[in-house]
């Protein structure tokens, strides 16, 4: 699992900044498409759930995220949802053929 923080650490950056975000964007977008973006929700009990992007979109419309298990509405969900990245099928396929 790759996160903005792990990229920062690997590159030795003091913080996540615009340049680092743009570099990760290039890996996740364009015809490079080496990474796929995912979302992780961590609740107050530190339980982790991968979120469907549609759930985040619904949360933005409704102003609250429905907990994936309990259904309880979480208003400050943006503090508890974390983007992360995984190697894309395209990258995995390219490595398999290398």
């Amino acid at each position: 699992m790759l996160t903005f923080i792990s990229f920062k650490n690997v590159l030795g950056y003091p913080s996540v900044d615009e340049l680092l975000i743009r570099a990760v964007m290039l890996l996740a977008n364009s015809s490079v498409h080496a990474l796929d973006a995912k979302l992780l929700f961590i609740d107050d009990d530190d339980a982790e759930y991968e979120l469907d992007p549609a759930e985040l979109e619904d949360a933005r419309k409704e102003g609250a995220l429905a907990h994936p298990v309990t259904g309880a509405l979480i208003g400050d969900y943006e503090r508890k949802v974390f983007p992360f990245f995984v190697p894309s099928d395209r990258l995995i396929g390219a490595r398999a053929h290398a």
Partner: protein
Amino acid sequence: MTFQSIEQLLALVQDKPALEIGLSVATSNDYAEWARNINRAVDHALRQMAQNPELRQAKGEDELTIELVSLLNMMDIEAGHDTKVGGHVDIRIKGKRDYHWLAEAKKHKQDYAWLMQGFQQLNTRYTTGLAGQDKGGFIVYSDHARIDRTMSKWRDHLEEQKIEGMSFSNCELNDLSFQSTHPHDRTGRPLEVRHIALSIYFDPKDRI
């Protein structure tokens, strides 16, 4: 802490709309979301271009399009001008999973048949009508007053052509834009085209 939350990320990009849109494009999870964010990027770039119409009203179609493509490139969007796709399309944007968003751009000469020709180039020459490539744009640059009326007349003109199965809707991103949808000639899949306006009209009335 090994994670950066959405809240922290949004705080980093909050005063940088181009970065926020670029991030949204990069993290789009399907073609519909990607195309919607491409439309946001195009609108952002066109808003920049609308700010100095006096410098742009004499520019030709290609110059304006090249400027638009450059602005999109600065947002880390993979846009190209005059790319060969069944002909030389004005704007081609590529994304992951072979996503495409193609656009034709015309400088309006108060000639709706001229616009129609451009629309049909996009419709029947450049677009494949395949999944992940069936959304695009038709950009109208106008150096005449009241681009709202131009777009309204263009929509009426397009409707009068009675293209089989064509329907229209308003654009949720921009009230000067509208959207047409019709079955693509090649594939029968719905081709969604957003018709987008840029006014470069400039006629200040403060001079004595």
